[in-house]
C-alpha cells in the first residue's frame, strides 16, 4: 500500500503527499474517504486486513480493472460462440444506438 506511509519520510513527502488525491477530482471521492477513514481508525497493519473491502472498492474505482475484466471475459465468450456457430446472423451482437452513451 504505497501512498499511506512513504518509505522515507521527510518534510518534502509531507508537503507533496496531499497533491494527488481523488478529493478534488470527484469520481472516487467517496471510496477514497471511506478507505482513509477506515485506515485511520485501524492503522496500517490491522487496517490492511480489516479494511480490505474498502481498499478493494477504492482500487476498483481508481483503475476500473474489474469492469474491464468483465468486458474482456464477455467479449471472449461472445467471439467463441460466434466462431463455434452458436450465435448467428441477427443474434451475433446487441448494438446500442449511437447517441445513447
Amino acid at each position, binding site marked *: 500500500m504505497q501512498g499511506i506511509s512513504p518509505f522515507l519520510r521527510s518534510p518534502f513527502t509531507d508537503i507533496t503527499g496531499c497533491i494527488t488525491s481523488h478529493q478534488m477530482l470527484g469520481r472516487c471521492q467517496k471510496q477514497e474517504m471511506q478507505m482513509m477513514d477506515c485506515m485511520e481508525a485501524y492503522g496500517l497493519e490491522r487496517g490492511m486486513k480489516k479494511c480490505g473491502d474498502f481498499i478493494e472498492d477504492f482500487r476498483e474505482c481508481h483503475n476500473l480493472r474489474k*469492469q474491464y475484466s468483465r468486458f474482456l*471475459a464477455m467479449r471472449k*465468450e461472445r467471439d467463441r460462440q460466434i466462431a463455434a456457430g452458436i450465435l448467428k446472423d441477427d443474434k451475433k451482437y*446487441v*448494438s446500442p444506438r*449511437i*447517441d*445513447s452513451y
Partner: protein
Amino acid sequence: MADAIIRKQDLPPPGGYKPIPYKRIPAKQFFSGYAMFAGYIGITAAGLYLYNLNYKQIKKDEVEMRSAKMAIYPMLLAERDREYLKQLRKNRDAEAELMKDVPGWEVGTYYGERVYKNLPPDTLVEPIFHEYYAHADPKEWYRRAYLKLLS
C-alpha cells in the same frame, strides 16, 4: 564613267512629313470630382443601411435558434438518458443469455465477484465504455469510439 550612275536618295515626300501626333487625348469625363465623392458617400450609406437591416435579421434568427435549442435540450437529454437505461437492460439480458453456460458467472459481476463490495446490491454501477459496448458490433464500436475521439 562615274556620272553615268544615277543614284536615288531617300527623301521626305513632297510637302514634308505629317506632324507627329504627340498631343494627349484625355478620356471622356462623366463625373466631376465632387460628384464622385458624393456618389461614394451615397452608395456607402445605402450599403450600410442594407447591411444593418440584414444584421438585425441575422441576430433575430440567432436568438430564435438559440431559444429553440434551449427549449428542446431537456427533451434531448431525457431521450438520451432513456435510451441509455433501455440499453443497460438490453445489455443485462444479453449478458445473462451469453454467459449462462459459463461456470461461476453471475450477471453484473466478474465470476461472482461484485464490482463494488460496499455498495448495496441494487445500486446502479455505471458501465465504462468497453462494458457498455461489450455486446456491440465492432463496427458500431468504432463509430462511437471515433465520435468520442472527435468530439
